[in-house]
């Protein structure tokens, strides 16, 4: 039944807060929620310059998974994936969590070998993973062409049964509503223009609606971390690349799993609505422009038709792109920057969505206790100076 009740009451910021979170995306709202609910911080503001979820939170491909490689980060990604399970109940909001399984196709023996090696690391970390033969894949995805017809035939796959999808808008509003219920002020249209630092300590932020004082500022700004860097006079270890995503028109259900090809940079899933989401890879050059291109769309169409020839009638009806802040080691930057009271949760590249619950939980813990939680220690900024880069492979 239609309701005229607003889902969420946005607020005007007050003059001072205990914690200010810059960025009203999934990470920022999740951090606010965990801070208010589990660390009992009373006065929290989330400042968003556009609308909530206007950045990467509204521009991702809804994929959740933990099939990364670097052993020091696997416990974190594993926990993030597990946290999605209980979230609908905790936030009292259906996030449409669907652990439908992720099938990553291999097209050559070396690639298969690399996937086996990766699977071993993951299994050691307690992540459920299996290798599949083409025949086994065919049983799960009957529409997939496993013949020799494609230029790069399917020779096997890595199956990650815990991987799947979560509805990104549902997650965003779930966290926003839950945060607001616990007394967080969510302020949209408030753009942070500067961070005030006195004697190496954060004192507040300047915004388009005036100065707001706070002893603790947390930046969860997705693809805009370099702007925060400029406010505090430093460079960040990131380069911004756009990622283009496309959807087709709605069709009858035929695809039960998330199918990806890491080698060819494409992945697809059929949403509950029936359209296919076609994801890809970063654009090949740095850009702050969330444009979409004919080249990417045609590339995506070509690749999916190689493996799903029955889709020749499908049309791409919508495209969008989002900005990804990528570090050289495919790992994010979390924790402090050497300024008292300023913490970061940035540089999440194209794997920020799936990590949302863990980022919120551990960013909140870091803000509340001042101690870097064990699970996010590998993501500290000083790893770039201590020769402790995360040994992640690009996936």
């Amino acid at each position, binding site marked *: 039944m239609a309701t005229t009740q607003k889902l969420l009451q946005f607020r005007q910021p007050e003059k001072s807060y205990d914690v200010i979170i810059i960025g009203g995306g999934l990470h920022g709202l999740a951090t606010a929620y965990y801070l208010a609910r589990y660390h009992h911080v009373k006065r929290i503001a989330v400042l968003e310059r556009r609308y909530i979820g206007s950045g990467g939170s509204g521009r991702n491909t809804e994929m959740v998974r933990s099939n990364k490689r670097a052993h020091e980060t696997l416990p974190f990604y594993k926990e993030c994936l597990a946290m999605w399970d209980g979230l609908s109940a905790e936030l009292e909001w259906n996030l449409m969590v669907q652990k439908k399984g992720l099938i990553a196709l291999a097209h050559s023996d070396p690639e298969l070998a690399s996937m086996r090696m990766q699977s071993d690391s993951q299994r050691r970390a307690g992540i459920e993973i299996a290798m599949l033969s083409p025949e086994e894949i065919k049983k799960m995805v009957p529409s997939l062409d496993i013949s020799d017809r494609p230029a790069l035939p399917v020779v096997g796959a890595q199956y990650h049964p815990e991987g799947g999808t979560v509805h990104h808008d549902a997650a965003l509003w779930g966290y926003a509503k839950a945060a607001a219920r616990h007394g967080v002020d969510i302020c949209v249209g408030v753009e942070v223009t500067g961070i005030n630092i006195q004697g190496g300590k954060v004192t507040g932020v300047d915004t388009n609606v005036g100065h707001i004082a706070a002893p603790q500022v947390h930046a969860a700004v997705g693809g805009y971390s370099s702007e925060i*860097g400029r406010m505090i006079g430093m460079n960040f270890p990131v*380069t911004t690349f756009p990622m283009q995503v496309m959807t087709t028109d709605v069709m009858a259900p035929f695809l039960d799993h998330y199918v990806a090809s890491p080698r060819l940079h494409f992945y697809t899933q059929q949403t509950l609505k029936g359209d296919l989401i076609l994801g890809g890879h970063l654009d090949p*050059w740095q850009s*702050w422009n969330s*444009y979409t*291109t004919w*080249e990417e769309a045609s590339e995506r169409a070509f690749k999916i038709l190689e493996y799903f020839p029955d889709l020749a009638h499908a049309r791409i009806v919508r495209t969008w792109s989002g900005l990804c802040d990528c570090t050289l080691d495919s790992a994010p930057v979390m924790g402090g920057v050497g300024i008292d009271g300023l913490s970061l949760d940035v540089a999440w590249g194209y794997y920020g969505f799936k990590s949302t619950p863990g980022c919120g939980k551990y960013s909140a813990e870091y803000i509340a206790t001042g101690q870097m939680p064990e699970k996010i220690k590998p993501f500290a900024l000083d790893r*770039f*100076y201590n020769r402790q880069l995360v040994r992640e492979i690009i996936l």
Partner: protein
Amino acid sequence: MAFLINCPNCGRRNPYEFKFGGECKNAPEQGADMKAWCDYLFFNENKPGFQDEWWYHAMGCGDWLKIRRNIATHEIIEE
């Protein structure tokens, strides 16, 4: 295609022929400390607006070239 790159050897070409090589940065002097090298290697200005950057003409002449491109609008300034 978002823009064309003017290669000194091959003329104006499709950017998909090139490999993006990142923003131009000044390498530290010889004998610089480790921090300077880490800053040079890993940290970027990454600022919307015009920047000098490296491109490699992989599917063309095989030369490295520098261009000045606005990374927010993809406008290129040719000298």
